[in-house]
């Protein structure tokens, strides 16, 4: 009798012990891989989630799945994002699950209105969000970016995400900026740059950068070449191709390695002067020139020309940022903070805000180039 009682007791305990309060079956989750946020005229948001459709995503080749898309975009409007996200549960059989959210795209308009902080609060606060989600600004409507039909990847988000990882091959994509980074920019009240995504036909392009000032307002965009210049300034350039002319014929310098060194003269603390020294190394990638670049003097000339070109590219972005956007996204403020803290402390509020000392500081740019390999041939034709 006692034994039977004990046994029942243990059996009943099983009911409690095996349970998991928070269990959600994987089939019941709507996996969100990407988010796009747009502004409406009435100060509200339009939130768009890209859901993966597991069944379609499972089909082996993307060609065979041509008929059924492997993703679904859902949009909802709301004055706060949280509310909008909840609204989506009304329309989707599977409530959104954010753990696998890879990218967050903000519309240009939202960024220009300075609402990036409102937007990102939820993405940092909520436990389901990951700090590693990438943030991008779209030219035009953000929603559109999730609607490209990528030929190689199965999901638009995969396509954008993979492309954003390309700074190793392209000089004009800025390194991916995660939500964690952006939180820091917001807290530090400094200007910053975020990758840009734009759509043309059925493609997206990530070349360029969106420049935000210290008040978190989008000031404008940097084009292809200016972004390259910016990457030289920040030392984040990993690869690139720079075209120069040698005797009127184009020669391409393939950048393999570049580093930059900043030094500052802070004798006049209101007007610090910077020296930026870039050292680049690389190969000759392509040459239509008639000269034999194996000759030392030709090589030296080429090196100098490439150096001048790099300096010119950097100069152009500097002018743009100082005169037009008045935002220091080149890392001078950080440099002062790290190395001349006393000076920085006294001028940080006036650096690229208020009196904007940044727009008036002098910057001296020097670029040294070393060509290591010219390729297998000296010149291509006689």
């Amino acid at each position, binding site marked *: 009798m006692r034994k039977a009682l004990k046994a029942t007791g243990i059996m009943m305990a099983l009911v409690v012990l095996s349970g998991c*309060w*928070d269990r959600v079956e994987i089939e019941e989750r709507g996996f969100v891989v990407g988010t796009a946020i747009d502004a409406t005229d009435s100060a509200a948001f339009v939130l768009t989630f890209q859901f993966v459709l597991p069944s379609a995503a499972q089909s082996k080749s993307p060609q065979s799945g041509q008929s059924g898309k492997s993703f679904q975009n859902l949009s909802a409007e709301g004055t706060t994002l949280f509310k909008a996200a909840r609204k989506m549960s009304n329309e989707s059989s599977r409530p959104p699950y954010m*753990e*696998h959210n890879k990218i967050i795209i903000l519309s240009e308009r939202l960024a220009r209105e300075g609402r990036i902080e409102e937007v990102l609060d939820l993405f940092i606060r909520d*436990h*389901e969000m*990951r*700090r*590693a989600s990438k943030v991008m600004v779209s030219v035009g409507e953000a929603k559109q970016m999730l609607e490209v039909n990528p030929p190689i990847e199965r999901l638009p988000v995969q396509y954008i995400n993979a492309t954003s990882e390309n700074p190793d091959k392209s000089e004009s994509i800025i390194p991916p900026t995660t939500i*964690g980074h952006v*939180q*820091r920019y917001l*807290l*530090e009240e400094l200007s910053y740059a975020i990758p840009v995504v734009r759509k043309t036909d059925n493609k997206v392009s990530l070349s360029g950068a969106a420049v935000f000032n210290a008040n978190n307002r989008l000031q404008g965009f940097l084009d292809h070449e200016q972004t390259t210049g910016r990457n030289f300034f920040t030392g984040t350039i990993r690869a690139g191709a720079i075209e120069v002319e040698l005797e009127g014929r184009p020669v391409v310098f393939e950048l393999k390695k570049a580093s930059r060194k900043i030094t500052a003269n802070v004798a006049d603390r209101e007007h610090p002067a910077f020296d930026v020294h870039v050292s680049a190394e690389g190969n000759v990638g392509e040459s239509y020139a008639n000269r034999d670049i194996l000759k030392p003097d030709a090589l030296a000339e080429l090196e100098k020309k490439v150096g001048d070109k790099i300096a010119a590219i950097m100069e152009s972005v500097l002018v743009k940022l100082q005169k037009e956007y008045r935002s220091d996204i080149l890392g001078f403020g*950080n440099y002062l*903070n*790290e*190395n001349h*803290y006393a000076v920085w402390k006294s001028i940080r509020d006036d650096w690229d805000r208020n009196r904007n000392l940044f727009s008036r500081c002098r910057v001296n740019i020097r670029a040294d180039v070393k060509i290591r390999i010219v390729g297998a041939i000296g010149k291509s034709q006689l």
Partner: protein
Amino acid sequence: MKSFEYGDGEIGTMEVSYGVCNMVIGFGVLTLPRTLAGMTESSDAWMSIVLGGAVALGFGWMVASLMARFPKQGFRDMAAAVSNKAIANAATLIFALYTLLFVSYETRALANISKLYLFDRTPEEAISFFFLLVVIYGVAGPSISLLRLNLLFLPAVLSILLVVLAMNLPLFNVHNLKPAFITDWKGVASASKGTIFSFLGFEIFLFYNAWVNKPGKARRAVLSGLAVPFVVYLLVFLFVIGIFGSVVVRNTLYPTAELAKQVEIPGGFFERFESIFFTIWVMSLFNTAVMAFDVTLIAIRAVLPKTGRMTWILILGPVVYLIAMQPQSVTEIETFGEWISYAGLAVGWGFPAVLLLAAAVRRVKGDEKSA
């Protein structure tokens, strides 16, 4: 390994070291970086850690000296030897109250952080309840086995921490550590208070002293047990600052947990690395809580030996639970934790210091045979 090696009901140097280490590394690692970054600029709080660590090691030395001076005696016997029985009983009961509150805090803090990162819908009441049930199951057994459990859990806890740090290595940015030496000494000093708090806990070994079989080595055991958390705190702090930067750390509730959350291993299951981190972290918190509860029981039973251990467990279990449920929000939990830290400073470190001083002045020494 001989079969009777663990049959003696005693603990050696290793158990003490592991126990001290596990007791100290608990909830503190998760919040310490924020506390420190809040009071200092940039990465300057490493000085506070060194400072606070030095103070903690000093007190560790004191506790260990007491242990060596009174071999095989628990806290109450030590206190009774230098003063009188009444004072010793009162001090022991205060100690018991402190450890009891400590268990409550640990239970609640665990429930809070688990709810934030793991169980979105499970109520904190339930998480605390189940955790407490396991703790009670733990203390229902002999103390020795709890101390030995440390040997099993600590390596797991330390390795998961190292894995988290290693995985974050690519994100480490040395520039975040600069500029150095910009905080004034006041900031560094007040931040070291936070460090000292997170070194609290090892004082419970004053009670476990009754089972320590090599009292001569107590100093080495306690100090080496404290050295590990010291290194861990320094490492975790520098990593968190190096990865997030000081400003972000200041504004993040549990920076170390965010570190774990940031880890991304491609391919399904491991993408949510923080679940594994927390699961293992709970083991550490369990050990801390269970040892604190165990010491509460030992302390109370030293004064009131007539009532059995199991009875006390059944009386105190609900008390712990009710106390744990008192704070109503995160900020209240933090205030609760702060109070307990002050209490720990006074009780856990103040008492032994006074005791050691009194013992030295009165030339009282424990006699091994009397124990």
